[in-house]
């Protein structure tokens, strides 16, 4: 099954790398958002299946807020990525029940594992896809 994935990451290189891993795994990236506003706009437009969200975005943007928005608005789950994955930030993120929390620097295999998990979660629930963008 091909999943449609949103990447929310303010480092261009890391976003490209994630995109590469996602497409190598046979999925599609619907867009790359550099900040919360772009993330909200891209999510509204494409209704992706799930998102990779960096916990810390440019201009002080919060990835947790983005993940919360995606969950509340579209019931989307997120895979959180962070360079500061300590006990404190993990506790803050746990309430959002992310698919996975991944520390930087990550191994591609960790990302693949998380995608697998997210896709399986999608299969388990009724897939909600807009008729416009589906198929």
């Amino acid at each position, binding site marked *: 099954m091909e999943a449609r994935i949103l990447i929310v990451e303010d480092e261009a290189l*890391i976003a490209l*790398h994630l995109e590469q891993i996602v497409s190598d795994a046979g999925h599609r990236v619907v867009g790359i958002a550099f900040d919360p506003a772009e993330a909200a706009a891209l999510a509204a437009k494409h209704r992706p299946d799930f998102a990779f969200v960096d916990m810390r975005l440019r201009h002080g943007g919060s990835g947790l807020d983005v993940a919360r928005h995606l969950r509340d608005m579209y019931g989307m789950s997120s895979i959180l990525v962070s360079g500061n994955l300590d006990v404190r930030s993990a506790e803050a993120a746990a309430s959002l029940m992310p698919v996975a929390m991944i*520390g930087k*620097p990550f191994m591609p*295999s*960790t990302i693949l594992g998380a995608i697998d998990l997210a896709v399986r979660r999608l299969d388990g629930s009724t897939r909600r896809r807009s008729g416009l963008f589906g198929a």
Partner: protein
Amino acid sequence: MKMQTAQTRILAVDDNEAALYATSRVLKKAGFAVIEATTGEQALEIIRRERPPVVVLDVNLPGISGIEVCRRIKQDPDTRSTMVLQTSATSTAVHDRVEALVAGADTFLIEPVEQEELEAVVRALLRLHKSESTLRATLAERNLLLREINHRIKNSLQLVTSILNLQSQEFTDPQARQRFQHAVSRVMAIASVHERLYQDEDPLTVAMDEYISGLCAGLTNASILDPSRTNISVEVEPVRLPTEVAVPVALIVNELVTNALKYAQPPEGRGAIKVSLVRLPPDELKLTIADNGKGAATETKEQSGLGRRLVNTFVRQLAGRVATHSSANGYEVVIVFPEQAVTAWRPES
């Protein structure tokens, strides 16, 4: 001078109205804003709400005693920076004063207290309070800075590994691509040590059990071989190693497991790789990477390259020794190295 001190609030606690009045008067005359309380419960509530820097606290109070009030102030992380000046007209014996100080009081004065002395002691406590809060603020700033630097390091290492991974897609020559992948894998092994740092309370050491499991899972998945054909088992004791030891160990594991994945496939059936790190009493660690492949014939040849030189040099860096065993059942590399005493990191120290 007056303007400055006028804003400083002091809490005076005494159930004896006359004594409370006297204390308040002296402090007000000295230019402080005085908050008054007549019971311990009231005092604790005011301290939590108003956070006065100094409290003048009588020992004999109805309900909870002044000494217990002091103990609670000093036990609560939110209020423990409050300076406590314990006073009493009746509990003045040495053991009373000692009990108060043991409970956390910063000083003890026997009532009646001379006006000048009360003012001077309160000012001395204010100086202490100020330098303590400056220190606390500096420490908090330093911790924040450390977190920020750590975040930057991890992010930069992520950029490095991302560039390398993106670049590896550009190779068309399979052999060149594989060589490049080796370099990427080595860099990732180092980078992933940093991913493990700072995750818990100890920022200087790495929990090797979780780390090696993660590393091996990553190598298996990245391997060009069908992962279902190789079974990799990891058995690592819960041991923490300082970063400077963890990095060479990580690179050794990376080299030997990569090599095993490539050359250790038995002609038929599943390949099995075993990685273990166990304590060797009294003070050594034993790292074993074993497989059920064809034995040393092919592996030795491969390891004559950079991989072998890296392993040998890292073993020397660890002040360890290496032995290899080859049989029909497979190939095994054993590395023994001293476990340096790791001084536990205590954030409070």
